[in-house]
């Protein structure tokens, strides 16, 4: 087996319990699949209902996680760990399994958080932004449970990661006249003003400009003097606290 040849240098690797159990489950699944195929042509066959492994191992803790090393021939004084796997019904799977993260939801792994915070969150069972919202809804002071976890700071960091996954996109910018024939800059795009708690702020060449209306696909800004676009003008558009766009605009006389 080629993979086994590649393994030769990685003999007696240290392992984390969850990695070992994952591999154990894969092996058990392979066994069950093979037995299920055999069962197609045999009136009676076995299925493995339970599996247990008593392991002699040496645990070690590096201050971050516990890993194990399988005892090798000649080694004494190993600890004993028993891993038991049993069959689980569909109903039990539904009752004990958390639904996967919804589309677009930011998981803690994806969020721009430091390793310690991620570890603290995992310890209290928080794996997604949704979990954090559930804790907030139940009015739990998360800092009482885990020191150094500030809900507001976390929520902002997660919101930032979420925005980074779905950034605003500018498709076009055009100058139009409003009802009173005043020049208005119309920025069209995708995912522009998506935060209802924040009104976009526009600055043109360092001057604050009035945002007339905003929606996810269009932002209208009062320009004042349209002649400023004869030369390149810089528009800085803050659509929410986590999305700031800087666009250079110049009037194109030859445009259709």
């Amino acid at each position, binding site marked *: *087996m080629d*993979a*086994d040849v*590649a*393994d*030769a240098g*990685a*003999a*007696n*690797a240290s*392992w984390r319990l969850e*990695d*070992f159990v*994952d*591999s*154990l489950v*894969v*092996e*058990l699944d*392979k*066994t069950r699949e*093979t*037995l*299920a195929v*055999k*069962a197609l042509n*045999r*009136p*009676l*066959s*076995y*299925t*493995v*209902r*339970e*599996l*247990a*492994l*008593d*392991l*002699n191992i040496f645990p070690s803790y590096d201050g971050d996680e516990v890993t194990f090393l*399988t*005892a*090798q*021939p*000649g*080694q*004494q004084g*190993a600890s004993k760990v028993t891993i038991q796997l049993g069959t689980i019904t569909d109903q039990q799977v539904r009752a004990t399994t958390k639904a996967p993260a919804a589309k677009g939801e930011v998981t803690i792994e994806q969020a721009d958080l430091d390793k310690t915070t991620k570890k603290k969150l995992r310890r209290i069972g928080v794996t997604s932004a949704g979990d954090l919202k559930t804790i907030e809804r139940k009015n739990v002071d998360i800092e009482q449970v885990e020191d150094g976890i500030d809900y507001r700071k976390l929520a902002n960091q997660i919101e930032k990661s979420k925005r980074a996954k779905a950034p605003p996109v500018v498709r076009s910018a055009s100058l139009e006249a409003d009802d009173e024939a005043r020049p208005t800059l119309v920025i069209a795009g995708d995912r522009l003003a998506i935060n209802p708690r924040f009104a976009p702020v526009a600055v043109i060449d360092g001057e604050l400009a009035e945002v007339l209306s905003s929606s996810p696909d269009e932002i209208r800004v009062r320009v004042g003097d349209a002649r400023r676009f004869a030369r390149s003008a810089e528009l800085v558009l803050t659509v929410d606290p986590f999305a700031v766009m800087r666009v250079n605009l110049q009037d194109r006389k030859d445009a259709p």
Partner: protein
Amino acid sequence: MDEAFRPLSTTLLDFAGHSPVIGGEAWGQRLTMTGLEIASPIELDVSRGADGRLRIGTTPPLYPLMTTVAPVFHRLSIRAAIAEREEDEDGR
């Protein structure tokens, strides 16, 4: 994985892959083993593959003799039962 070891699934299939029916015409009767429980000492070789996944190599005790370097025996226990058979489209 050391060549003396083989994947855990292969060992499990050796334990539980045979037919539960014993006997036949030559015996004059048939017996069905409705369950199976095996507990066996095994030697383990845990290595990490190129894909990062752990590979669990197993073997029954390699040497039926006293050896200079004492092997480490772990213990594998399985319980198998006759699979419930779903009827196929032909009702078999």
